[in-house]
């Protein structure tokens, strides 16, 4: 292999590495994470879609268990302890500014403070063009009954895997 070709192969390898780095964390979370169900909270019903993505809010985006996090600066990392209720829906039980130890019946999810809520990186879900109208309408009508299936890894990183509205499952 000539030097010129070697440089081409290295450059191609670099492009592949960059491409692999984009979903690396999400793949890891999907492979190793624990599955939980989160209840969505209403977002602006007139702008549910943002480009090709549906915008989702969660009840844990604005945890009622504490107001302390609202005083923290925007962009600060927070860890929210979640526990499952009898219906299998996970809800916030405490908010921490450092990573706490995880109890057996709980899950820690990592987020970042925004101006008025906590964001977990699961606020957007891609919907294919064909299904966009159907999902948007379903979500607009049944916003309070929608749930998201989310995987959370041991460090608290989350990835959304499914959107569930009543008995309809949207997985893309």
């Amino acid at each position: 292999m000539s030097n010129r070709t070697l440089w081409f192969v290295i450059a191609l390898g670099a492009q592949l590495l960059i491409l692999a780095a984009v979903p690396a964390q999400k793949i890891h979370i999907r492979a190793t994470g624990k599955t939980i169900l989160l209840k969505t909270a209403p977002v602006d019903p007139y702008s549910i879609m943002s480009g090709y993505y549906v915008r989702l809010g969660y009840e844990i985006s604005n945890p009622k268990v504490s107001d302390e996090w609202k005083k923290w600066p925007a962009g600060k990392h927070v860890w929210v302890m979640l526990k499952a209720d009898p219906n299998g829906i996970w809800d916030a039980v405490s908010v921490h500014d450092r990573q706490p130890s995880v109890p057996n019946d709980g899950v820690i999810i990592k987020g970042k403070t925004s101006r008025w809520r906590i964001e977990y990186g699961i606020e957007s879900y891609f919907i294919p063009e064909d299904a966009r109208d159907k999902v948007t309408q379903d979500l607009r009508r049944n916003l309070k009954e929608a749930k998201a299936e989310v995987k959370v890894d041991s460090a608290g990183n989350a990835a959304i895997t499914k959107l569930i509205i009543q008995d309809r499952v949207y997985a893309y």
Partner: protein
Amino acid sequence: MANRKISNQFRELLKQELQIWQTDSIISAEQSSSLSQKYRLDQMQKESTHLLLFVIYIIGAVLVGAGVISFVAANWENIPAAAKVAMIVAFMLACHFIGYYLWRISAISPRLGHALVVLGTLVFGANIGLMAQIFHIKSNFYNGLFAWAIGAIIMAYAVKSVPNAIIAILVWFIGFCSGVDDHERIFAFLPFVAAAIFLLFAYLNRSVPAFSLSSLAAGFATVIYVWHSVGGLASYGIVAPGLALLFFGWGLVSARTTKFHIFGSPAMIIGTIFIAFGAYISSFKQYRLEFPELLKERLWLAPTITAYLLGIAAWLAAIKQVLSDTNAKWITAGLFVSSVLVVASVLMTPVFMDSPDSFWCTVCANVACFILAATLVANGFSSLDRQIFWAGVMFIALVITSRFLEYETGLLIKAAVFIACGICLILAGVGFENYLKQRRPANE
């Protein structure tokens, strides 16, 4: 020819002149033939056909790429995630490998091969977006663009491809503009880092388009950063003279080197664009009103000071050579005086901010505009360059028009000035064309 690039404009002119010289018996047929051979004049037609072919191949390749990506996206729902990833990566690899084979290994069709490698980099960018869709990643738009730019510039260095570098520069600039609001401190020196990477490519490959585009992108990115940090007109006037000094000084240094003289003119033109920009913005009275807001922030200081320091360094390196060159002396002096006046106008503003004397700051900037325009017009005459002459004339017409629209004057005065400006413009044009005809009748 092996060591330096000769412009196509020069070769075109030389080709026409050779025929005239030969008809007038100034040179013999043998001399004409050896000159034609030296400057490869017989290949000009072939070269332009190759360029046209390359452009057609690029457009064709982009259309094929867009079609394939749309086809995959149309059937997205029915394809499992692993298959989606495999398909888009396979398409990117196929473009790159087939392209590189045709371009560099077999050399069967170098232009088509190069176009496919460029397509591979475009598909790489589209794939970053598709990966984000497949895995539901809604990151900031600019993160994806920066990742694309990094991949594109690595490929550009590896295969010495100017179109790949141009993709990287454009994508980086769009990413910078869309993200400048989010990470102010990180973005402060990003234009300088990007300029270093892109300009090194331009120098290694002697590419004037890559040089010009990266200089403009890095320069305007710095201006945009300062504007986003503080807002308002004032930010433009502060940073633009520093960039003008930097690029013009750089041009002066480059023009006198044997290896990099091709970058001399583009750098000086870019420097002139920045000083015209800074002088014009500072010439508005609104500029002074916004200044107090500027002083409350400090984020603009770091990139601005860096631009000025680099500019001063470039001028110090060039000054000796400039003083020994009569032609360069006048335009350099005119541009330098304009820059100094704009800087003086900017520096005087906080001193005279609340006093009626702040009027003199605006006068200073307007004088800078006139000196710059006069320098360009004079240089147009001395170098018989129509473009430089008209740049100067149009710039002064723009400044005069702006002043009369900015200040509330009577309609009669406005009408008189606009008519006078119009007549002067026409007379200047006619005068210059006559002057050109007298000085270079053979070319016309």
